[in-house]
């Protein structure tokens, strides 16, 4: 047997880490440093927080330091968990077997801005908002825009294969990373790009490894540097929100808008009846809307004024073509701006009795085709309603569907159901109920030909055990890759059912 298990970190390991890092302030075995590096926005069961802490955290500043830390872990079979902003929504950066947590946030430099070949090379610890504040003076833009834009970091976006609010126009994380420097689970440092090029967008040499290293959830290596796409900074943005008295009219309108061939279309999002009911509780844009507002379609466009201005008139016409009513300039521009920063939203929900209570935000995402959205919506809400009634700690915050295809927004959607969990009432029984709820939601996704995650990652129980089912015959390929690159299963072990790759070595 040669796989990593929990708690192989003792004082001698900490001493070795201090020798590698060369700065005791960047090797942190103390409790508060470990607690803080477990925290995520949609947490694992918080009443069992202690089970999810690393044994020690390190903050390297160079790829060489990361490499030496990983070599140490590989030699001693200690789990290694990479962590950037810790803003993920399914515990991808949360240790499940302790070990060494590699926090990359000190690797936050901008190493090169190449305005000729249009790339920027950065460390994985830089935040997109801060990066774009620097790029603005060059009139260029790195267009990766999650709902955690002000707080998530480039390295985490690469690790999770992040999805962007502007993906229909500019692509998602994997489309905007040109090449990467990766520390493999063996400690070797490799360049991963298109063929051997650091600044090339397309190559046919050997295999396309770049996609393998964007979205592995920290299970195949640690990104220590990334060369990213630069696009011209948009001259204008345009957002329009349309209200509907019926979900199906809104769904049809989404289809019309996404198939209109508007190249500047950055995203179209559909809020369902449950989401509108939730917003009516305490979102000033929706509280005073008439009861006839039951679904909303939001559209955003970016580009030159010459492109966006005429296209905006097409959007206004198509948005009304199935009975949509414009919500006005103020809500359209203001609500759209708030979409970049959803993590600032105060998180509270309602108990079964209607009382406001503090709740954490859990969101189940999936990738689903346009044709099945209405049916999936009904099945997902029915599942949450059943579990909410039984356990009394869940609150259905509604669903949205958001264009998912990079530059091809018409066929499939990131679909998400947001559920509040009353953490103060959480216990093992309630958590098990929630995990079962998640699993049923994911089973509906698979039944309708979808994928159980479009962006968050299938790294938490309730999703993880369904990964082999979703992957089908390709699961053997996945396991072979994992086993080959990470022979000792040290890199973020216990995620996505990848332990199955080592079962043969256990028998």
């Amino acid at each position, binding site marked *: 047997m040669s796989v990593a298990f929990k708690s192989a970190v003792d004082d001698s390991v900490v001493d070795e880490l201090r020798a590698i890092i060369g700065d005791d302030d960047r090797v942190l075995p103390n409790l508060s440093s470990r607690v803080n590096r477990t925290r995520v926005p949609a947490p694992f069961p918080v009443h069992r927080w202690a089970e999810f802490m690393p044994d020690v955290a390190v903050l390297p500043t160079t790829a060489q330091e990361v490499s030496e830390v990983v070599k140490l872990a590989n030699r001693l079979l200690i789990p290694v968990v990479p962590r950037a902003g810790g803003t993920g929504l399914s515990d991808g950066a949360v240790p499940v077997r302790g070990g060494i947590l590699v926090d990359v946030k000190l690797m936050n430099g901008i190493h090169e801005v190449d305005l000729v070949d249009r790339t920027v090379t950065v460390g994985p610890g830089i935040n997109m908002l801060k990066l774009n504040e620097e790029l603005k003076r060059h009139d260029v833009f790195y267009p990766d825009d999650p709902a955690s834009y002000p707080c998530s970091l480039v390295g985490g976006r690469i690790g999770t294969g992040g999805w962007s609010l502007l993906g229909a126009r500019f692509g998602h994380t994997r489309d905007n990373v040109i090449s990467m420097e990766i520390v493999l689970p063996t400690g070797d440092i490799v360049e991963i790009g298109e063929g051997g090029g650091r600044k090339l967008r397309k190559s046919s040499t050997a295999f396309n490894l770049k996609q393998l290293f964007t979205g592995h959830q920290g299970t195949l290596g640690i990104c220590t540097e990334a060369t990213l796409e630069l696009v011209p900074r948009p001259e204008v*943005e345009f957002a329009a929100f349309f209200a509907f008295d019926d979900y199906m009219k809104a769904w049809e309108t989404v289809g019309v808008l996404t198939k209109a061939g508007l190249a500047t279309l950055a995203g179209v999002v559909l809020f369902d009846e449950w989401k509108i009911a939730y917003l009516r509780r305490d979102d000033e844009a929706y*509280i*005073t809307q008439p009861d006839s507002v039951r679904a909303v379609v939001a559209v955003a466009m970016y580009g030159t004024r010459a492109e966006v201005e005429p296209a905006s008139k097409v959007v206004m016409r198509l948005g009304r073509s199935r009975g949509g009513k414009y919500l006005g300039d103020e809500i359209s521009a203001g609500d759209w701006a708030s979409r970049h920063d959803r993590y600032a939203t105060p998180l509270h929900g309602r108990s079964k009795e209607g009382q406001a209570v*503090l709740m954490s935000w859990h969101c189940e995402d999936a990738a689903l085709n346009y044709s099945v959205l209405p049916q999936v919506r009904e099945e997902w809400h029915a599942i949450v309603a059943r579990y909410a009634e039984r356990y009394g700690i869940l609150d259905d915050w509604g669903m949205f569907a958001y264009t998912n295809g990079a530059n091809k927004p018409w066929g499939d959607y990131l679909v998400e159901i947001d559920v509040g969990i009353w953490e103060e009432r959480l216990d093992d029984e309630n958590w098990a109920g929630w995990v079962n709820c998640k699993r049923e939601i994911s089973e509906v996704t698979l039944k309708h030909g979808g994928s159980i995650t479009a962006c968050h990652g299938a790294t938490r129980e309730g999703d993880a055990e369904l990964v082999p089912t979703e992957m089908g015959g390709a699961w053997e390929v996945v396991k072979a890759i994992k086993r080959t690159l990470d022979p000792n299963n040290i890199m973020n072990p216990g995620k996505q059912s990848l332990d199955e790759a080592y079962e043969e070595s256990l028998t």
Partner: protein
Amino acid sequence: MSIFRLGDQRPPEPQRIADGVVMRFEHVYEVDPALMELTGQQDVPAWDTKRIVDARWDHLDWMHDHFADDVLLAGEGSETMPEEGH
């Protein structure tokens, strides 16, 4: 260390404007205090409420500026709430 005092900055009595929602200042909505029995709220003086509301607009403008040079508007008011349309 300062301790804020409500004093004459005490907010006005709330008006009910929807199920579960009250309003003390124009367009500033609050959860109905009757629904806040399990989750306590601190008293907020009027000046602080106004500061927070004003800051939200600054925040949204700041966020717009990260993504484009200008915000293009349709130039139309609300069709669902005509009284607020311009």
